[in-house]
Structure formats: structure tokens, C-alpha cells
């Protein structure tokens, strides 16, 4: 960062080694300008090309990836950086969706305000279920969040005064600064600008004392406490931040879907988010985006595959639905990644990158 204070400087793309002289240099987000320009270029291409080229279906898939990525980043902060396993992320996503929907319909909050407000509400709900982490570690917390998942699901279905039960809620069209967001294309901008914003926030949280405290708790909670980190407070904070991301994504999802029911927010969704974090790479913000992309694409590919199998009549007579195939492939993906690449796609990406890094003299 200190380089920028000197005004213009030479861009450097090929590092010959690690020459950090100060601790701040260890904190830089991009090791070389190659990454910085690459990401900028990618974003420009994303915003310039996707809305023009992609058809409605492709844009829908891309939007889904964006929403899932926001929620997955949140879960990665909790699981990958703080080391607390949550099986309730899908339910928190649902809390966000319902909070957004209720704020929009009953209190007539505008879109730009309802979404962060829903995030805050979800953060509070999440922190309630994070309280068991006062006394509990790892596996007990996992069980507590599992209970949270079922309790939230129950409340969503049965608190009919608030959530209209199984009837669901229909949301008004989102408007932002006078523009009404009524198509996949306009939502694309909202979702991806939010994703960039949330990614920046997450990346930067990890460079502050809060992020370092999270990582210290993950690596050794006793040592962290010994160093003077109040771990309960930080665990709870991590829980809150993670749920905020889930709620934020959920609220955007609710607006995007227009009508929501309680159905999607089940344990399967929570497992899906955990799968994104594991497959993407724990403790890597970019990894969460990779993981979200992988899982959403996997879902779509499976849907396409079952459609083909059904239509061509290869498997006629056998009642083939998507659910079992999806379960099977999902489980396989999780298991194979854990066994063969436990650090996920982020690690694959790092290996690919480092092969190119000193090219053509990589030895």
C-alpha cells in the first residue's frame, strides 16, 4: 500500500521471490499487479459482456451464482476463518429472505434499505444460536446449529401471523434510485455490485484485528485466549457477520424470486453451502466464489442431464427424478474433494497460477 503514496509507480508482474520488508507487505491483497489488473479486467468484461451476450437462462444462472457466493463468503468467514462449523446457514438464508419479504410487504421498506436491514435481523438471529458457543467447542456447536436449522424451519412454517406459513409471501418489485428491477438483467447489476462490495468487506475484515482474531481462534483457541483475545465475543461476532451475509443474500434472493415459500430453506441447503465452502476452499474468500460457481453449475448440469435422460427415453420405465441423482453426485463431489483436494478449488487455482508464475523458467 505504501507504494501508492509515492504516486505513480512501475507495475510489476513477475515476482522473482518473496521480498517483503515490512509486515504491511504481507497483508497486501494482490501479490503482484498481475492479479490486480486481471481482476479489474475480469470485472470490466463481466459487466460489459454478460448483460449483452447472455440469454435469460444464462443470466439467471449467473445471478444465482452471485447470490450463492455472497452467502458462501459469509459461511466461509465462520467455518474457514473462525473454525466454527454451522449446519444452519440455509435456515439463516431463509430468515434473511423472510425478513426482507416482511419488511417490504408489511413495513413498505424500500429495496436498498430492506436488504441490509434483513441482514442485520438475520445477524441477530444467528447470534442467538451462536450463544451455545460460549461454553461449547467444535462438535457441540455443530449440533446446536443443527437444532437451530430445525427450529427456524419450524418457526418459518408455523408462525403464520408473520410468515403466512406455507402460503408464502409475494414481494413488490424492487426499485432502486427510481429504476425498477424487473428483469434478470437489471438484477444482474444489483447482485454483482453487492457481491463485489461484500467481497471487499470480507477481504478487508480478514486484514484487521478482527480477522486476525478469527484466525487465531481457528488455529488454537486456548492460545488465542491466552494472548488476550476474548474468544466468546469474537466467536459471536463471527457468527453475526456470517449470518449477516446469509441474510443479505437471502433478502436479495427473495426480491429476485418475487414469491417465497418456506420450502427451500431446509437442511439440504445448509449442506449445500457447506459443500460450497469445502469445495471452494476453506479460509479463502475467492474460494467461496469458486465453490458457489461449482455447486450452482453442478445443479444446473444435473437438471439438464436428467432432462435429457428422461426425454431420450433411455431410462423409460425407471422412475428417474433429479433428487436421488443430485444427492448422489453431491455427496460424491464432497467426499472426493475432501479426500483428494481438501483445500479446495482455491488450492487448484493457486497451483495452476504458480505454474505460470515463473513461466517459461519455472524451475
Amino acid at each position: 500500500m505504501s507504494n501508492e503514496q509515492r504516486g505513480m509507480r512501475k507495475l510489476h508482474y513477475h515476482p522473482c521471490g518473496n521480498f517483503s520488508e515490512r509486515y504491511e507487505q504481507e497483508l497486501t491483497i494482490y501479490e503482484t499487479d498481475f492479479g490486480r489488473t486481471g481482476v479489474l479486467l475480469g470485472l470490466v468484461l463481466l459487466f460489459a459482456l454478460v448483460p449483452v451476450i447472455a440469454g435469460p437462462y444464462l443470466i439467471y444462472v449467473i445471478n444465482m451464482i452471485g447470490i450463492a457466493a455472497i452467502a458462501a463468503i459469509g459461511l466461509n468467514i465462520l467455518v474457514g476463518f473462525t473454525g466454527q462449523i454451522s449446519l444452519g446457514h440455509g435456515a439463516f438464508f431463509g430468515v434473511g429472505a423472510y425478513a426482507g419479504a416482511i419488511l417490504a410487504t408489511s413495513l413498505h421498506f424500500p429495496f436498498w434499505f430492506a436488504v441490509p436491514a434483513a441482514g442485520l435481523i438475520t445477524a441477530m438471529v444467528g447470534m442467538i444460536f451462536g450463544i451455545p458457543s460460549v461454553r461449547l467447542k467444535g462438535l457441540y456447536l455443530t449440533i446446536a446449529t443443527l437444532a437451530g436449522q430445525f427450529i427456524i424451519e419450524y418457526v418459518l412454517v408455523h408462525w403464520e401471523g408473520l410468515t403466512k406459513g406455507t402460503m408464502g409471501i409475494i414481494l413488490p418489485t424492487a426499485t432502486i434510485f427510481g429504476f425498477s428491477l424487473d428483469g434478470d438483467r437489471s438484477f444482474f447489476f444489483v447482485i454483482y455490485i453487492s457481491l463485489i462490495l461484500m467481497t471487499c468487506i470480507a477481504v478487508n475484515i480478514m486484514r484487521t484485528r478482527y480477522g486476525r482474531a478469527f484466525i487465531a481462534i481457528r488455529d488454537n483457541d486456548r492460545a488465542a485466549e491466552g494472548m488476550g483475545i476474548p474468544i466468546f465475543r469474537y466467536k459471536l461476532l463471527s457468527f453475526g457477520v456470517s449470518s449477516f451475509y446469509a441474510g443479505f443474500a437471502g433478502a436479495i434472493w427473495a426480491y429476485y424470486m418475487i414469491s417465497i415459500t418456506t420450502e427451500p430453506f431446509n437442511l439440504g441447503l445448509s449442506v449445500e453451502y457447506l459443500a460450497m465452502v469445502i469445495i471452494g476452499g476453506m479460509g479463502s474468500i475467492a474460494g467461496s466464489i469458486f465453490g458457489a460457481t461449482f455447486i450452482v453449475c453442478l445443479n444446473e448440469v444435473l437438471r439438464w442431464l436428467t432432462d435429457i435422460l428422461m426425454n431420450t427415453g433411455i431410462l423409460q420405465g425407471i422412475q428417474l427424478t433429479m433428487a436421488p441423482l443430485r444427492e448422489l453426485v453431491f455427496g460424491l463431489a464432497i467426499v472426493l474433494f475432501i479426500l483428494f483436494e481438501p483445500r479446495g478449488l482455491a488450492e487448484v487455482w493457486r497451483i495452476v497460477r504458480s505454474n505460470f508464475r515463473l513461466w517459461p523458467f519455472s524451475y
Partner: protein
Amino acid sequence: MDFFIQLLVNGISLGFLYGLAAMGFVMIFKSSSVLNFAHGELLAAGAFIFLALVTWAKLPIFLAFIITLLGSFILGFVIERLFLRPLIGESLIYVIMLTVGLASIFKGLMLLIWGGNLYVYPDFLPANLSIQLGNVNIPPVYVISTAIGLIFLTFFGLFFKFSSQGIYMRSVADNQTASLSLGVNVRRVFALSWAIAALVAGMSGIVLGTINGINVHDLSSLGLKVFPVVILGGLDSIGGAIIGGLIIGLLETFTGGYLSPSLRDVIPYIVLVFILMIRPYGLFGLVEIERV
């Protein structure tokens, strides 16, 4: 009053089933500290193997039972060898997620083969085993399941207390490194505990299938119901699993009977959160106090 007694009897029998289902879970946790999210699928696997043997292969009941137990034993062994062994020493989340992934694989496979339909076993229990208590009739399958539960409980209680393998298992659970340095074959202990746990799960699956019919979704969601049971009873206590199962079973039937049927399925989890806050090691679990 009759309604009350009927609920009581239903609760106790349901509780015994939960206890049976939880027993295998506790065995895995006791020896390898692994939370097995695939336990419901192991139950279902046992139930379906038995179904296949009885209806398709038309084997006599007793032989089918023995083969199912053997098959489950081997299944547990294979799971440990293929999936869990590479993860020895890895952090908790990988192990937990691995069992979640396994659950998904098994569920998918069973859904592909049998679909989401409800199957029932042919009637094979003699009717004269039923017990009449006043106005309340206890069907034979509950009598059998209670008997099996008690037999297994005693057997495993003695196994862990006196047999050398049982003592190895406890020592590994207590401190892996120390037991390794004292010459315990930790790998064999893990393999054996998974195999035994799968065997117990297969047996429970058969009993559950006899009572409620066999359905992949029901049995796998039962695997999650195990969590309140084992937390209440204490994660590492086999007797606690039975007691916890009884309490949760009674709680469920009474909530369903007197309060509301929809609350029935969620009440165990509400209790679970409170237990975790008040007494996380459960009623009979080993009290490990670590203040961090």
C-alpha cells in the same frame, strides 16, 4: 387415563427405538470421536438389505437377519477403510463433512434403487408375543425390540467394561496418541468400531423397518433425531443413549398427544439447545470442563 397410558407405552417404545438407533452412533463417537451424520443412512441400509434378502432372495428370516448383520458389519468396515482412514488426524470439519457427503451418497443410491416409496416386511413375528396390560395392548414387535435393546445394551456394556478390545476402544477415544504409544492398534480399533456400529445400526434398522415400514426419507431423518438423544444421554454413554432415547421418545409422544402434533418433531431440538446451554455433556456423559 387410557389415553395417557397409551401415550406412555408409545413413548417408551419409541424411546427404545431412538435408544437403539443412538447406540451405534455412540459407539463410533466413543472410540473415534467422529460425529456420524450418515447414521440414518446406515440404519436404512440395514433395513433395505434385510428387505432385499427377505422379499427378493426369499431367504428364511433368521438367515436373512444374520446375513444382514454380517453385511452391515462389512459395510462399516469398508466405510472406515475407504473414507475415514485417510482422514485420521485431520480437523473436525473434514470428518463431519465427509460423513455428510457419505450420507448423501448412500441416500442417493438407495433412492435410485428403491425410490421414495414405503415398503413393509412380510409379517414374520409370532402374534402370541404381544402383551396385554389392562386396556393397553403392546404389539409383539415392541416386545422384541425392547428385548433386543436390553440384550445389546448388556452385551456392549460388558464389552466396553471387560473385554480387551472394548478397553482399547475406550483408551483410543480418551487419548489417541497415548494409546498408540502404549501399543494399541488404533487402526484396528477404528475399523472394528465402525464395523460394530454399522452392525448395531443395521439391527436397529430392521427393527425400525418392522415397526414403521421402510422408507429412505424417514430412516435418514431418524439419523438426525439421534442428536438430541445422544446429547441428552451424554455423547459417550451407551446407557445414556437408551435413557436419552426414552426421555426424548416420551417427550415427543406427550407433546404430540397433548400440545400439538406439529410441535412433536421439533421439540427434541428445542430441548437439545437448552441441554447444550445448561449441561452440554448430558446426563451420563464424561464431564470435561475446559474453560476457554
